[in-house]
């Protein structure tokens, strides 16, 4: 946990309880805003977990619990015109990009008002208007795509940036290598972000990456990189702004954001592979606690204010799930609507129980 020690240089309460140097006014306002957003994500994710146990959400469901500070700091550093590609652990990103929690939750519930019209589910949020270009469930699958989006931007000479997030475990797959090499060769406007929550599912970074300081892998492509404390939303924001600026100038960047995953890999994982001490340590790192405490110490929030924020976030999550539950299921008649964008002759619209060819007239009974 050495990177924890060289993390946020100012402002967060240190382990011995002493108060680090204070925040500027602007930083204070920003931190308060970030905190509010973090709490929304927290309550949204908890509500989603409940929706899963209520069997209103199916499939896999991966939460951003513990990663709220990272999510908020990262997305805040993007412009509206920028593009975001991410993985299956992306509810928080969708909300931060400005998509309404209602539409995000409706997607988790598989309803027509979901961002992906119910076709994608938790792992596949997408909203072309908010330039969230997916949620992808294949580990590493988003990297070549994001690289290609950056290629299209560069080809047109426009000035958007692409951000592509991934987990620590994802840095070991071939697509990571191929993509970063292309981006560096072609000077593409892209920031690759590793959310290092120290675990794949139950496998640690040390067990899966021979160079566990993941940002260092940028050197293979002569790419600039940095490592930042993802439990500190301000530090994450500042580091991301610098990375995005570099990318906008045509120098792709690799940013490692060191974070925590508070619960199991997905809602159904009890995370038995964690020791009691690890679980204990996690709680003290929980960014909702540490950032909340810091705001109190800084005098930017009192207990009542904190409670109010929390109530507001809970209400947002409740509204989202109420909306989702009341949104209709897709109609089975729409099953064949999205196989092809350009309609095509002889596309087979056959339901599983239907014969390929209309039945022949019944033969007359023999003998």
């Amino acid at each position, binding site marked *: 946990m050495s990177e924890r020690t060289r993390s946020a240089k100012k402002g967060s309460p240190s382990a011995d309880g002493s108060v680090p140097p204070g925040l500027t006014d602007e930083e204070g306002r920003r931190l308060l805003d970030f905190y509010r957003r973090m709490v929304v994500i927290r309550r949204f994710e908890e509500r989603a977990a409940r929706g899963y146990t209520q069997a209103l959400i*199916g*499939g*896999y469901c991966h939460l951003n619990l513990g990663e709220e500070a990272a999510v908020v700091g990262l997305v805040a550093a993007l412009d509206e015109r920028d593009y975001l590609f991410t993985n299956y652990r992306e509810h928080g990103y969708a909300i931060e990009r400005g998509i309404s929690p209602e539409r995000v939750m409706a997607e988790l519930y*598989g*309803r027509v008002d979901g961002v*992906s019209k*119910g*076709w*994608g*589910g938790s*792992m*596949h949020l997408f909203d072309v208007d908010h330039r969230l270009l997916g949620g*992808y*469930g*294949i*580990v*590493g*699958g988003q990297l070549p795509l994001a690289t290609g989006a950056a290629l299209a931007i560069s080809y047109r000479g426009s000035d958007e940036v692409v951000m592509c997030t991934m987990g620590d*475990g*994802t840095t*070991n*797959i*071939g697509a990571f290598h191929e993509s970063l090499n292309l981006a560096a060769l072609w000077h593409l406007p892209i920031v690759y972000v590793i959310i290092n929550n120290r675990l*794949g*599912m*139950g*496998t640690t970074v040390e*067990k*899966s*990456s021979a160079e566990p300081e993941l940002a260092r892998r940028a050197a293979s492509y002569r790419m600039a990189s940095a490592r930042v404390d993802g439990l500190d939303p301000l530090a994450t924001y500042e580091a991301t702004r610098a990375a995005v600026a570099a990318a906008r100038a045509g120098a792709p960047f690799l940013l490692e954001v060191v974070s925590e995953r508070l619960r199991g890999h997905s809602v159904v994982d009890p995370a038995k*592979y964690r020791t009691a001490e690890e679980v204990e340590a996690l709680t003290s790192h929980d960014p909702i606690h540490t950032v909340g405490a810091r705001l109190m110490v800084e005098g930017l929030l009192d207990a009542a204010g904190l409670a109010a924020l929390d109530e507001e976030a809970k209400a947002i999550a409740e509204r989202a799930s109420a909306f989702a539950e009341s949104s209709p*299921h*897709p*109609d*089975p008649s*729409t*099953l*064949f609507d*999205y*196989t092809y964008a350009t309609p095509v002759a002889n*596309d*087979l*619209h*056959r*339901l*599983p*129980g239907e*014969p*390929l*060819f209309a*039945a*022949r007239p*019944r*033969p*007359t*009974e*023999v003998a």
Partner: protein
Amino acid sequence: MMAVMTFRQALHDTLRDEMHRDENVVLMGEEIGVFEGSYKITAGLLSEFGERRVRDTPIAEEGFTGAAIGAAMLGLRPVVEIMTINFSLLALDQIVNHAAKIYGMFGGQARVPLVIRTPGGGGQQLGATHSQNIELYYAFVPGMKVVAPSTPADAKALLLAAIRDDDPVLFLENLALYNTKGDVPDGDAPAEIGRAAVTRRGSDLTLIGYSRTAFVANQVAQELAETEGLDIEVVDLRSLRPLDRTTIVESVKRTSCAVVLEDDWLTYGIGAEVAATISDGAFDYLDAPVRRVAMAEVPLPYSKVLETAALPSHEDVINAVYQTLDAVGRRRPAARR
């Protein structure tokens, strides 16, 4: 001696027994150790055998599958778990262009005694990229062997055979079968790869499946025997490559009609070969077209409603049976609704 156990337990116990029997058997895959496997097939094996023999790998399907192939060339007998068959696309070059080619391309100098265990299956709302049935990609390739058990007993017998075979074997599992139960004989009796089984004799119609759909076929045959007095023969393919054409064709020669069940897409799916084989080999016996029951041809949607519409249901199977019996004029009057 027999014991009743789940499909999962049969796999687990067989892996464990084989590891005890042969020091060359090693397990590799993502999250099979500390996490005990995404579907818990390998639970407890890391603590029993240690990291040397139960190896958690990075997320690198191509790399670790290829490494298992290379290790097999030197005589280990790796059993690789690919978490779901969808992710095996990333390892396909290593499997198709290397594992399946090495024996032939080098004139028989190196064997690749490798097993790849991997589950397919839709119906869990996992969406378009996590619900595919792409065993076709392996079954198509000479040099590969592909087995697809439907019962705990076959899970054991075919896994024993696969581990002891000197060729690369894709061992197809299915998410929906893991919790199913059945009798599993004690003792050491590997199955013969390349043989289908007639799991139920009957004269009215041949119902054909593999993996989950063989389970469904037996269930439906049983049900229709009880409720409608129908006498349906069931062929469980068990091996997709080699494909046991003789057993399939001989069955249809007896029944003169067939319904093929598959969980993949219809066009070019596994059922296409089965139907083509029947239509050719039993040409003079067939009284109605071979009916295929398969997925709708769409990327599988997440929404439960849409997913259900896209996947073959129990009802779909029963209707296909009725319609085929109608077509051959054989549906028993008692059974008419």
